[in-house]
């Protein structure tokens, strides 16, 4: 699904060059759950931005579903993002002035889906994330865990092939974090590809493979062994 070959990203500021990513090679297969770990500033989020078609890279090759990303126009990238990629953030990034239901419906709105169809899908999602009773609440009336559930709901409403999660449990307590990780894991079980940036080994244990980054380079890649119970 994702094929990255010798990919580099360089930031230039006031004559100083910083290599955020340095000749990275990475493959993510369809239906896989991959965690990216590493210390602060190692390039995790930069990699996630590139994977989400939000940021450009300077060297190397990035093939997304058999398409060379470099050849895609901004418009094409936007279309792919709208239809195929869902995002989950550490700080939830819900829109304060929209209700739970409206936040979840937003991606469909931008896809031009009719209002009736939106309503129907939102109902389904609310059901799945168990937030039906809070559909008309505003984000600031919810707990952190509830907000992140809504954010996950928003990410999956378009049935995306890929979910990119940036430290999804970073602002949550352990019980809420567990809940979210189980949701992501459940999605992955149903065939959705998940790439997650995390600091937490516990969260990473939900994935199938852990990629470790240090100073912009991949230093290790290992499969997670799941106990057979």
């Amino acid at each position: 699904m994702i094929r990255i070959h010798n990919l580099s990203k360089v930031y230039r500021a006031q004559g100083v060059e910083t290599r955020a990513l340095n000749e990275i090679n990475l493959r993510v297969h369809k239906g896989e759950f991959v965690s990216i770990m590493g210390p602060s500033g190692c390039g995790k989020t930069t990699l996630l931005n590139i994977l989400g078609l939000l940021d450009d890279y300077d060297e190397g090759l990035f093939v997304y579903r058999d398409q060379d990303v470099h050849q895609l126009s901004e418009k094409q990238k936007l279309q792919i993002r709208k239809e195929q990629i869902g995002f989950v953030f550490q700080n939830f990034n819900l829109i304060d002035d929209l209700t739970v239901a409206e936040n979840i419906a937003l991606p469909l709105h931008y896809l031009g889906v009719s209002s009736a169809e939106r309503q129907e899908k939102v109902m389904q999602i609310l059901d799945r994330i168990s937030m039906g009773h809070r559909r008309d609440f505003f984000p600031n009336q919810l707990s952190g865990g509830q907000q992140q559930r809504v954010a996950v709901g928003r990410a999956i409403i378009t049935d995306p092939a890929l979910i990119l999660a940036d430290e999804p449990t970073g602002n949550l307590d352990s019980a809420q974090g567990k809940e979210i990780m189980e949701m992501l894991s459940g999605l992955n079980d149903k065939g959705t590809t998940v790439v997650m940036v995390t600091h937490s080994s516990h969260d990473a244990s939900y994935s199938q493979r852990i990629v470790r980054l240090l100073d912009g380079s991949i230093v290790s890649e290992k499969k997670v062994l799941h106990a057979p119970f």
Partner: protein
Amino acid sequence: MLLSKLPYAFRSLYRHKLYTLLNVSGLAIGLAVSLLVALYLQAEFTYDKHWEDHDRIYRVNAEFHLGNNVDVYGGTGYGAASLLQDYYAEIEQATHLLHIENSIYFKSDSLRDYVEDVVIADSNFFKVFRLNFLQGNSNQALSEPRSIVLSESFALQYFGSLDIVGKYISTSNFEYKIAGVVEDLPENSHHYFKALISEPHIPRDSSDLSLTLWQVGFYTFVKLKEGVEESFIEAKFDGFFDRYMEPLADAVQGRYYIDLQPISKLHFYSNKSYDRPGGRLVYVYGFAGIGLLILILAIINYINMATARSLRRIREAAMRKVLGADGLEIRLMILVESVLVSLLALLLAFAMVEVATQILPFNSAIGKSLSLNLSANPFLVLFSLGLAILVGVLSGLYPAINLAKVSPLDAFSNKKGLQRGDYLPRKVLVAFQVSVSVAVVITAFFMYRQMEFIKNRNLGFNADQVVLVSIQDTSSIQKIDQITRAFRRSAYVESVSLGASVTGSGTYRSLFEVEQEGLSEYRRESLNYLAVGPDYLKTMEIPLLLGRAFDEQDLEDSLEERLIVNQAMVDFMQWKNPLGKRIRRGFDEEGQAQISGRVIGVCGNFNAQSLHAQMAPLVLTLNRETARVIHLKIDRQQVYVALDDIERRWTSLVPQVPFQFSFLRKDLLEMYQEELRQSKLILYLTIVAIIISILGFVGLASFTTGLRTREIAIRNVLGAGSWDLVNLIFKELLWVILIGVLIAVPLAVVLTRWWLLNFAFRTNIEPSVIVLTVIITLIIGYGIVALHSFTVARRNSIHSLENLR
């Protein structure tokens, strides 16, 4: 697409109530001022456009070329209307009217009261000016002598009904038969009236009429036939002149031209002699300019607040972009919100205008009767809607463009949203605000000073304790000698004299032949003159510099007229020995002066005309017939007793005419109504401008402190005191204020100078006032910053560590 955004926009505004309230009320103030200005301009610029065929109706102005002078009058002689209509086939109809300057005492069965704005008109009047007759018939309305046509409100006031044709209404002298009732004339009519009295019919032949052409007394109007240019009439005037005016013209070596002025241009171009008071374009533009500035100030405030808020919305915009929104989507979202704010502000502005015009004394302060009658004023509806949408778009554009540029990557950052990038434009905008308000404050202050200066200036005469009694009707005119004698006998009256007009309100102008120093030849000059009674100089306390004042004996001497001239006349004629110099006037058909006079005294210069005019040469003549304003100097200690006594004496002589008086000091102030109104308007607008600017500065201060919350927290933790923080923030804003002030001061000085050019006598522009204004501005600025920084510092001490995270 736009409509689907409305509910969200409403929600967003509802959820940020304080922000919405500040914005809506700020914009509403700006819009309300704009609406008031629009109403004012609409009234001013549609003067006399309500007349049917107004583009074919012209007033005939007279241009006299006599000696070295050219005098242009708004009026013509009695005969002009009928002679012009006879001579020109191109003139469809001509008429003339005469304003009765004083109020008239009207009596009906149910009401007796003084009425102003009465005109005398000929029977052709309604052929030129089509008026809607509610009762009666326009064809016969003014054809009978002593008939009267009333306006609707006049009729209702006096009779309580409109069905009054054929009834009578009387003055102290005559009875008038009511011939019709017409709709009220709109107030924006240059020759406004509430009633028309028919003119007495005196049959005259054309040679009689032509003699009247050299006088000025009537306002003559012509309605040209379709397609006729006024320049054609003016060009063809030579033939008219040769036929009717030539003989006398040769005798006085004068020339006469006419100038046709479109009726809709009278209001703003009423600078002729003998004209009705009109509007001044400079004032109208000044008012419009300040209104526009206030609107701009309000828009800037909104931009500032919306920008500050948009910085807090960066992450929202970024997230929307991640989810698939494009720049257009974001721009529309912000614009729909700002247009909505603007439309809400418009609703509030309507309410504000309604309050200002119906409840507050705004109309009486500016001497208009503006009202927000939206259903009858489609132009205003379109204007206000258009303006609101434009303001909404303009004020939302900058934040919209800014937010649309946000990168989706910002959704990943943990920035709190406030960035310093958009800081400079905000500073520029606030500097502009500061400069506008400082300029307005300085200009307004000097305008106020000028008005005070006029009120307190030495006029060359003493207006204090001078009571004026105008004699208007024939019965009192016949008894004027008895009346003045009776007044003079009062123990409370120090001195009595007569004047042809209210002293200080203006003079008359005529052609004179004046003896020159050391030459036998006389010089022809057009000069100001004023007919007065004996004791005039004493009553008015005008100093006599040379010779003697008039006495009663002078009135008896019919052979030679006695004259007093002012010092300016002596200087103008370069007389070394003014006493005994001869002056002749009153020319006959052959151009021979009929009245010969001799200078018996020289008095000090005094303001016989308004303060707009320079002190001009002036001749005082002694005349009982035309001087009908009694000037009484009364006892300073016993004003009320004196007035009672005067009234008693008046009533015993002319009981049928109610006693009316005024104080000269007050009458003089009324001459500066226009300026007084202006300074009031300026005062109101200044207050509005200051409020809006303070709001803007509060916004900037809160934005600046908001930007530096983290820095303030760090400094707080490291032990900085509150004043250190205030000074830190103020230093950053100081130069914003200073730049604003630097732009404002020269601007204010230029504006003030320009305004003062309207006056012959001007107050000084003192630097101390400017310095003081600047200091006060800095103090206010510092106060606002201090208030804000203290709040932030206090909040910080609780949340410091949180902010540092």
